[in-house]
């Protein structure tokens, strides 16, 4: 590409990238910078009405770290994320492997179902799950009663933290599995058929075939999926916040996102909320560092 001189070439490149950079700067990086600044300031309702914020040093961070509710939310986030991510990956992988073992028309049907589940908007799914788990008229309680489980009739799933997170977790898993199925299935069908055939002839079946032949060939896709699931499940907000709205137990069901929302938007305590958000951001970057490394290796190819 030598039709343009080098400086002009560079100028055109920068010009093309400028609008995208500008909008990200304005909409994301500027507020992010402001937020980090705010986390070191006393920033409450008085500042909202125009009073200049005072420098507060690490006070906001201390307030967050001394707050038992923060640690409880952190633990809930981590446990919820670990369970949901693990179950999603296991179920999704099992589903994808199942697809390779069934007649074509069944595999197509399963994929069609996965597509529909994947397409469901978060809020639609949230409403359906609330209806499924409705205390009085929900199908789940009806089914549990029908198979003879005592106390299922009229049980309010959103009234205790454990059952609350069970509903939230099932929803998150239901929503996330389709993508895992698609990605793992795409990877597995790339594995050389003759290699699998040879291993079969050597007597490798089931679990052994999976661990020795299939798993090593799809390990990079698998790692990517695990990381994405962890990232997505750690930042879960919508599902928890909406379910909290219908449950009435808020304090005992906070995860990091809803905790920040609670002190910032509901409590008007922007400085402390900014500190908590910054802590969460650092945590996320810690987790995602590996993912970025992985993508960068791909980018350099």
């Amino acid at each position: 590409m030598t039709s343009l001189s080098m400086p002009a070439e560079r100028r055109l490149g920068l010009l093309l990238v400028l609008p995208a950079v500008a909008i990200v700067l304005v909409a994301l990086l500027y507020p992010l910078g402001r937020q980090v600044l705010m986390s070191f300031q006393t920033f409450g309702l008085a500042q909202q009405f125009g009073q200049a914020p005072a420098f507060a040093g690490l006070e906001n961070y201390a307030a967050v770290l001394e707050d038992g509710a923060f640690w409880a939310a952190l633990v809930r986030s981590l446990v919820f994320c670990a369970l949901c991510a693990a179950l999603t990956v296991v179920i999704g992988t099992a589903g994808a492997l199942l697809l390779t073992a069934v007649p074509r028309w069944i595999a197509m049907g399963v994929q069609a179902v996965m597509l529909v589940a994947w397409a469901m908007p978060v809020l639609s799914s949230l409403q359906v799950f609330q209806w499924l788990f409705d205390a009085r008229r929900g199908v789940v309680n009806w089914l549990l009663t029908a198979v003879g489980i005592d106390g299922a009739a009229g049980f309010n799933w959103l009234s205790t933290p454990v059952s609350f997170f069970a509903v939230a977790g099932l929803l998150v898993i239901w929503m996330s599995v389709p993508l895992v199925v698609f990605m793992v299935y795409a990877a597995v069908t790339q594995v050389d058929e003759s290699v699998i055939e040879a291993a079969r002839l050597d007597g490798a079946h089931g679990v052994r075939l999976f661990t020795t032949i299939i798993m090593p060939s799809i390990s990079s896709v698998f790692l990517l999926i695990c990381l994405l699931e962890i990232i997505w499940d750690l930042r879960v907000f919508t599902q928890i916040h909406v379910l909290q709205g219908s449950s009435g137990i808020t304090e005992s069901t906070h995860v990091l996102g809803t905790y920040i929302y609670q002190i910032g938007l509901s409590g008007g305590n922007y400085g402390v909320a900014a500190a908590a958000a910054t802590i969460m951001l650092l945590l996320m970057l810690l987790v995602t560092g590996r993912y970025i490394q992985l993508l960068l290796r791909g980018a350099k190819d």
Partner: protein
Amino acid sequence: MTTQALTPRSTPRRRSRAGARRILASAAAILFALVWLFPAYWMLNSSLLTDEELTSRVPVWFPARATLAHYASILGSADFWSAMRMSAAIAAIVVVGSIALGFFAALAISRFRFRSRMSLIIGILIIQMIPAETVFVSQYRMLDTWDLLNSVAGASLIYLGTNVPFTVWLLKGFVDGVPVELEEAALLDGCSRMGAFFRVTLPLIGSGLVASSIFAFLASWNEYTLALVSLTSSGSQTLPLWITSFSGMNQNTDWGGIMAGSTLMALPVVILFVLVQRNMVAGLTAGAVK
């Protein structure tokens, strides 16, 4: 070893064992599909049931006496149409904006060598990882200061900012896939540099454009967190907020209405997915794995 390798695979015993395994796998796959389909089916089913059936002691599994009453009441509500207008307007801006900005930036990163190129790539990857849940307090403050709360412009701005990095990354994968030689040939034929991009490259990354449009559409259509904090007045709610306003504690919940609303919200997305599923998977593998 030799004997085993020579044994034909289709001895009767082997065949029947393989057959049994296949049947077992098929049964498991069908069960898996049914479980995953059920919530979507239940949404559609419940939206068509009468109030009487919805409150019956035993669930009604099939809408034999299907009624469109719930849909009629939703389609007749001004709140629904207001939310639909907000969602559609924001989605349109986000899709068009993401594609335009994303295409230009993807060209720059893929085709030009400038000093900050690598740091830009790293920047995109890191920014993509910033969850909305960690910036919304500050974004809310910013929109408040600029008088952009409860406006299409404010929400679109934030959604664009979060979505553009992903679009750039996705489209970069597709632009990389177009041989530079094609553009060079167009240049020799007298095309300008930008002309070559528009006439040669753009038509060749069609599936990338479709995939990134869909992801941009979904990102804004489904977004809840920022809408919750920035679109608080009743006239400015988007569909996700509107649907939550239905249910609440201590309310005699109108499940038929909620299910009809949820179905109406899901319908465009499901149709879109079915139409372009091939592009979606292609887009994902290009964007995520590359």
